[in-house]
C-alpha cells in the first residue's frame, strides 16, 4: 500500500496545520452529507428492521429532483431543496404502502427484505439512468467562486453545503430530542414492544420515519450534487460510507448516525494526509469493518441491544 503523502499533493510551506485545516473543511462538507444520509438509513434500519440498500439511490433521485428544479426550470436552490425533499419523501411513503407494509404483514425476514431493497436499488438507479442519461451534471452554483483565508481554499459549494446541512442537522437533532414524535421514534428504534406497550401509535411513527428519512436523503443528494457532481451512481457510491456512519453510531441511533457521518467524512479526508487520496474510500470501509469487529453495537450503543 502506498504510504506517505505523494509529491504531487500541493502541500503549502508550514504544511501540517494548514493541511489539517483544509482536510477538516473538506471532511465537514462530505461528512455532513453522510450524516444526513445516515440518520434516515439508521432510523429505518432500527424502526422497521429494513436494511435499505436503495437509500443511496433515494439520495441520487433527490439530486436529480433538485437538478430539474434548479437547472431545467431555472428556479433558486431553495426551491430545488423543496423539490428534492418532496419527491423522495413521497417515494418513501409510496414504497412503504405498496411494498414494505404488505411484506411485513406477511412476516418477511430481514434478509428477504434486504435482497428486495437491492432489486429496488437496481430499478431506481437504472430508471434514473434511463431518464437523465449517464452524463455528469452540476447544479447552478458558481463553480469558480472560492475564498482563500490563511492559504486555505474554501469553495462556495462547501460554504453552502456546510451551512445548510449544519442548520438541517441541528433542526433534526432538536426534533428528535424535544418533540413527542422524535421521542417516539427513538423509543421505537430502541425497543418496539416497549414502545407499543407505552401507547405509541407505531403506524403513525412509521409514516413520519419515512417522511424524515426520505426528506433527509433528498437533501443529502442535492448537497452531494453541489459538493461534487451528480451522476446516476452518486448516491450508490455514498451508500457504503453511510453504512459505516450508521454502524459507527449504533444501528437505530439517530444521534449516533449524525456524529458517525461527520466522523467518517473527517477520517476519510484526514487519511489523505497519510495515504494517497484515491484510498480514502477504502479507509472509510476499513473503519466500518474495524468498528463491527471491535464494537458492533457502535460507539454510542449499549451492548445488550445487539442480538
Amino acid at each position, binding site marked *: *500500500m*502506498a504510504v506517505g503523502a505523494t509529491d504531487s499533493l500541493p502541500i503549502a510551506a508550514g504544511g501540517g496545520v494548514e493541511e489539517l485545516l483544509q482536510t477538516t473543511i473538506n471532511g465537514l462538507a462530505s461528512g455532513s452529507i453522510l450524516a444526513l444520509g445516515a440518520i434516515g438509513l439508521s432510523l429505518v434500519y432500527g424502526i422497521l428492521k429494513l*436494511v435499505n440498500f436503495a437509500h443511496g439511490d433515494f439520495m441520487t433521485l433527490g439530486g436529480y429532483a433538485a437538478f430539474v428544479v434548479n437547472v431545467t426550470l431555472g428556479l433558486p436552490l431553495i426551491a430545488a431543496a423543496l423539490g428534492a425533499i418532496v419527491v423522495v419523501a413521497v417515494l418513501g411513503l409510496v414504497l412503504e404502502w405498496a*411494498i414494505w407494509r404488505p*411484506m411485513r404483514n406477511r412476516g*418477511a*425476514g*430481514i*434478509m*428477504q*427484505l*434486504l*435482497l*428486495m431493497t*437491492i*432489486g*429496488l*436499488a*437496481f*430499478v431506481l*438507479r*437504472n*430508471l434514473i*439512468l*434511463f431518464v437523465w*442519461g*449517464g452524463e455528469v451534471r452540476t447544479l447552478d452554483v458558481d463553480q469558480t467562486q472560492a475564498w482563500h483565508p490563511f492559504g486555505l481554499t474554501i469553495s462556495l459549494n462547501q460554504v453552502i453545503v456546510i451551512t445548510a446541512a449544519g442548520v438541517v442537522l441541528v433542526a433534526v437533532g432538536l426534533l428528535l430530542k424535544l418533540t413527542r414524535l422524535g421521542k417516539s421514534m427513538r423509543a421505537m428504534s430502541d425497543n418496539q414492544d416497549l414502545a407499543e406497550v407505552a401507547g405509541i401509535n407505531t403506524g403513525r411513527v412509521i409514516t413520519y420515519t419515512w417522511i424524515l428519512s426520505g426528506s433527509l436523503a433528498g437533501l443529502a443528494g442535492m448537497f452531494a450534487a453541489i459538493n461534487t457532481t451528480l451522476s446516476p451512481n452518486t448516491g450508490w457510491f455514498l451508500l*457504503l460510507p453511510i*453504512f*459505516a456512519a450508521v*454502524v459507527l453510531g449504533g444501528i437505530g441511533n439517530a444521534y449516533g448516525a449524525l456524529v458517525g457521518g461527520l466522523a467518517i467524512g473527517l477520517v476519510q479526508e484526514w487519511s489523505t494526509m497519510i495515504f*494517497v487520496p*484515491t*484510498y480514502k*474510500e*477504502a479507509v472509510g*470501509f*476499513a473503519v*466500518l*469493518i474495524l468498528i*463491527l*469487529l471491535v464494537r*458492533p453495537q457502535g460507539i454510542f450503543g449499549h451492548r445488550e441491544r*445487539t*442480538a
Partner: protein
Amino acid sequence: MDPLLAFGFWAFVLTVAGVFAIFTLGLQVEVGDAGLINFGHVAFMAIGAYAMGLALIAGYPVWLGVPWALICGAVAGVLLGIPTLRLRADYFAITSIAAAEIVRITILNEQETTGGSLGLRQASGPWRDFNDDVLAFFSDLGIGLDRRVPLLVMVWVAAGLVALLLWYLGKTPWRRVLRAVRENEEAAAAVGKPVFAYKLQALALGSAIAALAGVFFTLQNTTLFPENFEPIVTFLAFAILILGGFGSYLGVVVGAIVISFIFAGTRFLDFPGLESDEVAALRLVVIGLIIMALMAFRPQGLFGKKEELHLDA
C-alpha cells in the same frame, strides 16, 4: 443478419453464462448451504482473475495458473472469514461488501502491479498458444472450429465439474453438518461440531470457486479492469441464485443463462425507438424487478425448496 442467429452472439452469451454459473455455484455453497450472505463474493473473482492474468503475463502455463488462482482465492476467503464470520448476518453482509470494495480500490491504486484503471492488458500469452494448439489439433482431424469454441466448452465442463463436486459433497457428512450449522448454530455447537471451522471451510471453498470463475473471465477477456469487479457482479449472482433457487445447482445453471442473456445478450439486440444506453439501463431495471418479485412471491426461487431457504438473521 439477425444477431440471434449469429454464432458469435451465442458463444459470447453462453461463455458469460458459464462464468456466472461457476461464480454463482460458489455463492450457492456460501448462501445456500452455509447461510452466509456474502455481498463481497466478487472480490474473490477479482483475485482469481488478476492472479491468473499476472501468471499468464509472466509466462506461466495455464495448468499452473489455475491452481495458483484457486489457492489465492481460498486464502483470501480464509483471511476475510477469520475476523468476520462471528458477526450477525446483516453485519457480515455489510462487512463483506466493504471488504470487496477495499480489494477493488486496492487493485485500482496499485497500478504498477495491476495496471490500475488502464487495465491489465494482454493477459493471454500461454492461453492463446494453448487455444491455437487445440484448434490445430481439430483442423488436423478435418474439423474447423471457431476460435471461441474451446473456451466455451471448457467453461461449461468446469461448471459441470464444480456442480459434480458440490453434488458429491452433498452426499457427505460435511454438507449435512454445514446445513445443520445454517439451520441452528447453537444446536450444532451443542453436539460438539466446530461451527466456526465449518463456516470458514464453506467460505474458502466458495471463494476458490469464485476465483475459478475469475480464471475464465481472464481467459475470455484477456484485459482486466477494476470496474469489471464492482459490487453489481455480486448482485447479479444473487439475482441468479434467487431466480434459480437457494440450494439448487440446476437452478444456478438455468438462472445463469437467463440472467446472462438479459444482462449481456440484449446489448446486441435492436429495440426500435430506444438508444443502446437506454436499453442498457432497462435491462438492469428488469433484473431488479425480477429480484423484487421473486423475493416477494417466491423467495425460494424457481427450482429451490422452501425448506432450504434460510434468510433470517
